[in-house]
């Protein structure tokens, strides 16, 4: 696998997880986004990277184009993580309004609400 891509993926996962460890809700969302990017890149690149040969075909299939399958998967993944992140943001909004806090450590007793 490509060194530079691997570094990127590992970097995204590492920083994403580190953000999840923080107490701030905003950092949590940032962490989710980072991990999402890392995962998308991972799926995208395991299919084999190919520069500047997008998968557009005519009547006859060209011999070498980029693998369309991981691309389709990642496209779906991007939109789903979009939905997930927006939902998390609205959770943040709710927590902010109800508890006046974005401290995750204060969100551990939902039952007492």
């Amino acid at each position, binding site marked *: 696998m490509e060194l530079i891509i691997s570094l990127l993926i590992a970097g995204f*996962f590492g920083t994403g*997880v580190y953000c999840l*460890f923080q107490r701030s809700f905003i950092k949590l*969302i940032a962490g989710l986004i980072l991990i999402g990017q890392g995962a998308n*890149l991972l799926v995208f*690149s395991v299919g084999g990277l190919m520069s500047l040969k997008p998968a557009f075909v005519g009547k006859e299939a060209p011999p070498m184009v980029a693998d369309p399958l991981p691309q389709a998967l990642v496209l779906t993944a991007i939109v789903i993580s979009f939905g997930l992140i927006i939902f998390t943001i609205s*959770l943040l*909004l709710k927590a902010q309004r109800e508890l006046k806090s974005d401290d995750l450590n204060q969100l551990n007793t939902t039952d007492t609400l």
Partner: protein
Amino acid sequence: MFFALTFSILASAFLLVPLIKKFSGARVLVSLPAGLAFFAFLFMGWPSLRSGEVITHTLEWFPSMGINLDFQLTGMGFVLGLLVMGIGALIMSYASGYMKGDAKETRLYLLLYSFMVAMVGLAVSNNLLLFFIFWELTSIISYLLVGFKHEYETSRKNALQALLITGGGGIAMLIGLVMLSHVGGAWTFTELTANAHLITESALYPYILTLVLLGAFTKSAQFPFHFWLPNAMGAPTPVSAYLHSATMVKAGIFLMFVMTPILGGTELWKTTLITTGSITLLVGGWFGLTQKDLKAILAGTTISVLGLITFLIGIGSDKAILAAILVMVAHALYKASLFMMVGAVDLATGTRNINELRGLKKWMPLTATAALLAGLSKMGLPPFYGFIAKEYLYKAAIPLPMEWIQAVLVLGNAIILALAIKVSIIPFFAKDKEKQESASDNPLHKNELDWTMSVSPFVLAILGVLFGAFPNLITPMVHTAVHSITPEANLYAVKLWSGVNWPLILSIFTVGLGLALFFSSRWLEKKETPKSWGVVIYERLLEAVLCLFKKTTRVVQSGYLQNYLAVILIATVALVAWKSIPTMGLWVSYESNLTLTPIIIITAVIMLISAFWICITKSKLNSIIALGVIGAGVALLFAYYSAPDLAITQLLVESLIVVMFAWVIKDIKPHNLSTPLLLNSWYLIISASFSLLIFTLVMKSKLVNLAPAISQKMVEMSYPEGFGSNVVNVTLVDFRALDTWGEATVISIAAIGVWILGKNLISKKS
């Protein structure tokens, strides 16, 4: 046809009952579906049963496993079905008076009807699993009914107790039934009966028997599980009358009847049932003697009679089975009647305390008559059906080699007699000698209540006389029931008077002992009922289990995201490293066939710096900008590596996220949420090692070609068959449209989630 008709008439109640609120004058009509179903069941079922024709119906369910919805009308099921629907109709009519004006009355009717459907299903199912499903349904509905007054904590507690005990027994029974079908090689009762010798000779037989009987004993309140039944009396009286005396507790009895030809006849069966039945008879009677509450006394005698029936099934002779069915029918008639009477008295006077109720016949003449008739049947005096049942009970017991049994039976019957006097005679006919200020002198609603409340017990009590005087009215049905349990049985005639014989002498003796017990029973009553040890064990056990889970939850669910994350990540890193490092080694070799352009390298470096910047920065704006940079960078990578669609989507999504994120967090006041340095470095170590693990794994994975054949096929088929040049899009909307469909659903659900969260906020503001 037969089953479909019966069930659909019963089901029509679910349409009818909700209308009650609109036509409150005709509320007694709630009993109509039950009554109609009763007559349909009787007039369609009886001719074919009599002629020996078997009504069956099978719906396929899991044909590959031999499990089907098999319905069959047997003699025993017929009797049970008639009891359920006949008494059910009377109970419904009674309930329409009893529940008048209660806000939850519709709920009660619907639950009672659901129960009726389940119970009739139980009576006519011929498949072990179908039987189990109906069995559990009755437990669940009983739970809802016992907990009907759910505002009260005791009510909820008792409902849970009844559910846990009968449900626990049900689970044991399920295991037993599965083993039974495994050994017997079939799921239907009829086939299992044919293979009975396989089962009784099998090594698993004792286990099967124990498990199945656990189910029956818990349901029918046999010792030592009897304690739930008195506690279940907190339910509204129609429920006590219907479920906890006439029908549901008979489900366990029914199971034992049905199992007689399959599991019965062995020494183990006989000993277990006879012993348990006798103990239950005495324990229930003793409980009844110590009580002052009318309902509790009746609960005690119900337990006694259930023990009696279990005992008779245990004997298993022709006479005993006949006697068992007679006792069951007689008990259902008089006990339901007595319960309804108690409910009426309770409503009229506001008390159920036996010592406060005297001379009620003046105010409630109809109820008093019904109570008297039912009580005499319960005492086992001629010419009531209870007398016949008791005579045949003694007839069945006399040939037994064990003398102590007869003593136990006489004692048990004497207790039942004493309690019958106490419940049905004293409150109505005794004079208030002490002239104390008791509840019966309270002039507050002293007269008869709604007519429906006295008619139903009256009808049942009259039936007890009618069947006693003319037993041949129902003897044919009783005989088919006996026949369905023991096909080779001699069918003894059922007569009211069979001359002076040993059973009659025992009966006279019983009456004498009963009267003696009655006169001494005042001293047996306890002020406070101590908890029976069954309840104590149950409560301790429940407490221990709850405590265990509370402790476990407290340890496992700390509520801190950091803890969960740390556990998950450490476990992941440790497990993957432990498995993969020895086989793959740590060294990462690097080979590339990709030309790296400076643009890509610069982009990657900028993205990595941004990622680290997000970790460090305290400013929320900086985080958002950095996230935007990363999103754009990823889009650039997509674009460079031949994925224009991805690049465009990524850019659009990224910009939308940034806008919405900024929208929300612009209001958030920054907090100083710093983590202690030591803890933070610990998190840093975990994150770094996780990152390292990912890096190693990604480097080690040599271009996993996801599925070359599929990808190749997609590229080839895209234009000729998908009519599109953009393979990615053709994949999304055609080849893999199912995924995309699911994804659109996910987005919609997320939208609903956002909507609901936001809606709450908006409405709270205004």
